[in-house]
């Protein structure tokens, strides 16, 4: 009797709509709870980060130019495709140490979060923007505009919901994203790229790097072409120094922790107010 050779998956990065290995050639072993090797995950270097930011910048104009309604449809599609692959995500969360019940709850939360932010995409401006009352012969309009490229430190122990909780509001607001996660979330971060690649998200709008926050976040906050960083996944004691460095190049920093509220999406956009002379 012949035994079948197992075909193991190569976990790679997701940059510009493609799945490259790390430029550095580095990988990181991932073991299950019993210590058995499950996979090698690509381990991103600073050059992968640079490539991801370049891809995100290149994709931003077209993504921001889409109507919020269209962005909503695309983010909703992510929820649909995610739901269809829940078994794989639950398995990979199990490898990371979650119980089956916790893994199921995590995927539920990720899908629901994607739906939440899909709904927000075309409602946000109605809540925040609009015509302002002013005491003068002017039309005063506040408009919501995206920030550009957002660097997202997703929590290593946050599962799929931790990723979608930061990527969702960034996309809904019209930004492109470079998301970084490692540790127990490495496998699902890599697999989430396959979901995004098959759910109408244009290449480069979301870029996923599996790696080490300590090694990559310094390069990210120093990068002059990153407009905003969310430090939710960075250890609290390391945040202060990174926030100080964002001030050097006027990068906005936030720590939304994946909360589902208006303040979160506000962290991912600017409000531009225009005064225009009105006819009396």
């Amino acid at each position, binding site marked *: 009797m012949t035994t079948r050779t197992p075909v193991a998956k190569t976990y790679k990065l997701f940059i510009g709509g493609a799945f490259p290995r790390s430029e550095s050639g580095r990988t990181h072993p991932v073991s299950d709870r019993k210590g058995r090797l499950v996979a090698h995950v690509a381990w991103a270097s600073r050059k992968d980060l*640079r490539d991801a*930011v370049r891809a995100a*910048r290149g994709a931003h104009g077209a993504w921001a130019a889409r109507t919020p309604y269209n962005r909503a449809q695309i983010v909703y599609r992510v929820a649909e495709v995610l739901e269809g692959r829940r078994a794989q995500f639950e398995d990979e969360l199990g490898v990371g140490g979650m119980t089956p019940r916790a893994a199921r709850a995590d995927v539920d939360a990720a899908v629901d979060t994607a739906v939440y932010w899909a709904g927000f995409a075309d409602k946000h401006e109605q809540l925040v923007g609009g015509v302002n009352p002013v005491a003068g012969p002017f039309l005063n309009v506040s408009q919501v505009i995206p920030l550009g490229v957002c660097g997202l430190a997703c929590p290593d122990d946050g599962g799929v919901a931790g990723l979608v909780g930061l990527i969702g509001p960034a996309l809904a607001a019209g930004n492109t994203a470079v998301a970084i996660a490692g540790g127990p979330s490495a496998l699902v971060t890599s697999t989430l790229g396959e979901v995004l690649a098959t759910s109408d998200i244009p290449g480069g709008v979301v870029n996923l790097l599996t790696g080490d926050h300590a090694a990559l976040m310094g*390069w990210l906050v*120093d*990068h*002059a*072409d990153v407009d905003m960083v969310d430090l939710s996944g960075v250890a609290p004691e390391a945040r202060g120094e990174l926030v100080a460095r964002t001030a*050097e*190049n006027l990068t906005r920093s936030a720590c939304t922790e994946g909360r589902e509220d208006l303040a979160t999406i506000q962290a991912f956009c600017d409000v531009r107010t225009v005064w225009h002379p009105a006819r009396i």
Partner: protein
Amino acid sequence: MTTALVRDGDRLHGDALRAPLAVGGVDAVALASRAARLAGRSIKRESKSAGLELTVRCIDLTTLEGADTPGKVRALCMRALHPDPDDPGVPPVAAVCVYPSMVPYAVEYLGDSGVHVASVAGAFPSGQSDLAARLDEIRGAVADGAHEIDIVINRGALLSGHLDVVFDEVAAAKEACGDAHLKTILETGELGSYDQVRLASMIAMAAGSDVIKTSTGKLPVSATPPVALCMAEAIRDYEAQTGRAVGLKLAGGIRTSKQALGYLAIVAETLGTGWLTPGMFRFGASTLLNDVVLQMRFRATGRYARPDDLPVD
């Protein structure tokens, strides 16, 4: 003025050549493999910094659009003089390359800065017009103050075997240039094989070109590492036979610092470091300059730089 340039086996014969010129052939597979190896070579930190600085000094900053205006040429000239507005340590580029109608403006804006004005001429980019008109265009650009003239060879004549026509037209252009430098564009994307590229290089050099250049930048396929290597080898072999050193210009599709450093390695390994000067080697490019400046900023600050911080034209 026909010279009856003929190819006899491996050699070119003609009245205008002092001695028969060996052309030789090209092993396309070996060429591609050697070019890939040289262009992919790892270049370490200090050499990379020197290479980036050299790249800036060797750039022909180019705008060749139907929509060019004096204002756009002025912006280009300012970038040519100050590639990084925040760092006066970044040297000016070698030249600004424009259409003949823009030469007077470029001459005015660049003044006596030492940055040359290069003009395409001779019915660029096709070359498909009457020879007298092409030569008049060259003379006009030189009279307006262009230091360098970029012309195209007659690809139709080359591909149909009229080597003497190609030779005579380049020789006439050289004469029309007077003191200006003649850069002859082979438009390698239309030549079909490396053997033809080598043949065209030899004819262009024999006819008096000061520099041979890959492409107009108007075709989807422009400079590639194998073509650069092929032309560099032709220059090396021509110098060995005649003693005259001809320059090389690579143009079209060179957008990143990494590509530029690869080409510098090809030139240095094939022709020697004597060619790594603005007088003997050029990049024809527009977007390359900002990418090099971004790399230089990264080297200076340790932070990745923002493309939107640099001027565009």
